[in-house]
């Protein structure tokens, strides 16, 4: 059985997060020094070789992303940290930023050196005012120490929109516009913030980098599942005994997360479903619990890894009600830019409310499935593409619950 393994949270509880000296005493900023002694292309090759993949949910190879921005010709490039952390049930980025903010800054500085950026932004969730304070203090200390050299970092606050976790909506928001996604391509590494090559990575991704640079790509690549190596922080919520967080290697299975780390379901009740990756994640039934929590493994069961939120539902819960509430969430959070998401999320919410209130018909399920098929491939951004998943997967795995409400 897997054990907890702390890479990202290596300094959790060991240092005073508001003292840069503590971080440095633990070996902090050595990785940045080492990175700067390497050529940019060697550094990017090393990151690529580590096979570190984005921890925000899309799972793109980090080094490869960097190589696009490195190769893009431009005087000005940007590094942006996505700290919007809007997925309900997710607080892993907050953990990192509250407990080890310098690790994030160091990771961003490594990236900045690799691609040739002088300016960085941390786009922090608006509901995290205390984190913004910590980050600003950490930046001030890093600047005073001179460790960031000529790389400047500014914290920008979100204003509560879930969609601003989508990287191009986040960029629009930093630019001062309405938080709405852009169409892609062009992707941010070629045209991002203010039209310049931009790397947007998640907090957890950046926080992995100092350890990778320090210990080498091979070390990192050997941890967990080879296609998605390293560790992942999971935050457990719902019907589980240990509603807390764990950092585990990616070869840990969902079952281990719930039963070993999570301590199982309270009051001796039976497991019903688990939703992983946040509100847009698929609901996973008992039969698929032995899947490792790595990106591609999750894909094969039609699920996502997402942000690493683990929401456990026991047998006593009304899964249709849960899915209906989630549908309401997406209706509320759709930005309204593209037609299928704007109208589709509202229709899913409407139909689900109907079913949940006992007014549904079997034909509604077919309509929901059609919306699922269309939205998942036609919407402009990930929000609309993923929005139907909780409804569709609950219909797929818990048809009896729906039938009970309809008949």
């Amino acid at each position, binding site marked *: 059985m897997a054990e907890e393994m702390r890479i990202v949270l290596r300094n959790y509880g060991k240092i005073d997060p508001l003292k840069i000296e503590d971080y440095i005493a633990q070996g902090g900023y050595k990785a940045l020094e080492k990175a700067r002694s390497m050529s940019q292309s060697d550094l990017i090759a090393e990151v690529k070789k580590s096979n570190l993949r984005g921890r925000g949910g899309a799972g793109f190879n980090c080094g490869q992303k960097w190589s696009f921005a490195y190769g893009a010709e431009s005087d000005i490039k940007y590094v942006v940290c996505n700290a919007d952390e809007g997925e309900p049930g997710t607080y892993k980025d907050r953990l990192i930023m509250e407990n080890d903010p310098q690790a994030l800054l160091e990771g961003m500085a490594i990236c900045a050196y690799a691609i040739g950026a002088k300016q960085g932004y941390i786009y922090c969730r608006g509901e995290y005012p205390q984190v913004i304070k910590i980050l600003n203090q950490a930046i001030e200390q890093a600047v005073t120490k001179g460790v960031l050299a000529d790389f400047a970092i500014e914290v920008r606050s979100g204003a509560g*929109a879930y969609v601003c976790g989508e990287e191009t909506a986040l960029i629009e928001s930093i630019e001062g516009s*309405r938080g709405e996604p852009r*169409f892609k*391509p062009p992707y941010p590494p070629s045209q991002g913030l203010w039209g310049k090559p931009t790397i947007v990575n998640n907090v957890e991704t950046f926080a992995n980098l100092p350890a990778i640079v320090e210990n080498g790509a091979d070390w990192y690549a050997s941890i967990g599942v080879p296609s998605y190596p390293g560790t992942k922080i999971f935050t457990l919520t719902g019907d589980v005994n240990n509603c807390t967080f764990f950092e585990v290697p990616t070869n840990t299975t969902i079952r281990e997360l719930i039963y070993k780390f999570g301590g199982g379901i309270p009051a001796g009740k039976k497991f019903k479903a688990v939703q992983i990756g946040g509100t847009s994640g698929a609901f996973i039934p008992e039969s698929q619990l032995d899947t490792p929590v790595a990106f591609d493994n999750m894909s094969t069961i039609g699920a996502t890894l997402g942000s690493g939120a683990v929401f456990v539902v026991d047998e006593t819960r009304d899964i249709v009600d849960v899915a209906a509430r989630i549908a309401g969430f997406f*209706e*509320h*959070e*759709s*930005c*309204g*830019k*593209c*037609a*299928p998401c*704007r*109208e*589709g*999320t*509202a*229709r899913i919410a*409407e139909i689900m409310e109907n079913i949940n209130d006992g007014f549904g018909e079997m*034909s509604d399920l077919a*309509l929901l499935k*059609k*919306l699922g*098929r*269309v939205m998942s*491939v*036609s*919407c*402009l951004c990930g929000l609309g*593409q993923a929005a139907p998943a909780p409804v569709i997967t609950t219909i797929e795995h818990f048809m009896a619950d729906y039938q009970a409400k309809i008949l």
Partner: protein
Amino acid sequence: MINLTIDGINVSVSKGSTILQAAREVGIYLPTLCWHPDQAVKANCRVCVCEVEGNRLLQAGCSTPVTEGMVVKTKTPQVIEARRTILELILSNHPQDCLNCIRNQNCELQDLANEYMIRDNPFELKVRGYKLDRSTPSIVRDQDKCILCRRCIDACSVTQSVFALGVEGRGVNSMVVPTMGLPLMESPCVLCGQCIHACPVGAIYENEQIDEFLAAVADPDKIVVTQIAPAIRLAIGEEVGMNTGELPMEVFVTGLRQMGFDHVLHTNFTADLTILEEGNELLNRLKEGGTLPMFTSCSPGWINFCETFYPDLLDNLSTCKSPQQMFGSLVKTYWAEKMGIDPAKIYSVSIMPCTAKKYEASRPEMNSSGYRDVDLVLTTREIGRLFRMSGMDFNQLPPSDFDSWMGKYTGAAVIFGATGGVMEAALRTVYEVVTEQELKDVNFTGVRGMEGIKEAAVDLNGTEVKVAIAHGLSNARKLMDQVRSGESPYHFIEIMACPGGCIGGGGQPLTKANKKRAERIEAIYVEDEGMPIRKSHENPEVKIIYDEFLHEPLGHKSHELLHTHYHAKNKRYL
């Protein structure tokens, strides 16, 4: 070149082309709603989605650049299901009142609903129930019909740099609204109506006033007199199934008489008059050190823009009223006198390519005849509807002539309808007035065409006069900023609010593409070429009005009837 296949057909297109462009090369037209030929790609309606081999997601044809070896499929069952579902969703909160809609049979959404056979929409119809915005005399907004494609926002912001429209709210509650959700009249809107051309549906349209016209015709005490703006004749044919410029003027006049106009006169007459007044005003300013550069003042959208955004430059505006308003004040004074008609009985209707003209006619200062100078403004589109209602076949109507005293015009007046036309007309006259020599070639081709900003220099007896022309208000803004910063090298600037000038006005037959505007401009110069007189000061009726009534340009009567003043508009949130 990039090679790809679309539906099995090999296509070779230049790098940077989109799937939509490549598909058109081989005759495959993707459905679109938010796409607009002269605007930036938005990719928000998603009805142009296609399958691209190797992609799990469908790709929007309008925004996806082609790549070497790309395999695109535009009509698979998956694609068709996606497009139909998206259309069903859009239609599910769109009022289903096509029969009463101003855009019935000229609606991109209606076309697609028909093409994609949307019959029984599985989604329950939920019309949002917003109130109509009738705050302006020019433009009506129907939020319920809005499909949020945002083409109006692009027209307002990018083309016109007015920024009166934006998106408010989120998700299914998002809506396109004037600044801060204010009624349109309180926003910085200049009433140019370019948003109407941009709208694919009936969400924004002209304030239709056909009923007021019919009531005037029905009133035995009213003598209904009309003036036709320079840009109308060549475009009106488009409204009755003819090509641009195909409907002869004389037949058009018969058509108007048939509809109940008692007298048909021409704004072109006052366009020629404008040249005399404005040309002399320019010469005066040049001679006496008046405020320069002088700006033309024919375009009411532009006047609104200047009053809203450049109130500090109002002294640069020519004091000349627009030809419409000059006509309005003269028809109830000079013309009434000549005809022996009681001006109180005259109901003066102007036919304009313009939505802002409806507002201009309603300005309180436009009553120098002692009455409201212009009682009603109908756009080209409204006249088109009247014509279609009448059942007339314009191929068979006999020709007829304009009524006297304010019906004659020159080629110089004709070209008022195109960007650069007022400038060219002014140069034709100013040159001869100053040099006292005959202008050998009346064609100032340098000021013609669709380029956003044009400039020219003319030698007037050793004095070089520098002129510039801008059409579309974002181009105007560039020239205005130059003037404001004191760096403008020009003496005279012509500005038309709408792209292409009046031929592209907000009241013209709906034109999605600038290509159509260019076509109308071409037709206008053909008409000018064919005119026996092409210089305003040679218009015989203009000579008569100066001899008998006005006596001289910029004289006492002119000041009273033909000139005006401007007011800063203090808009909120600017």
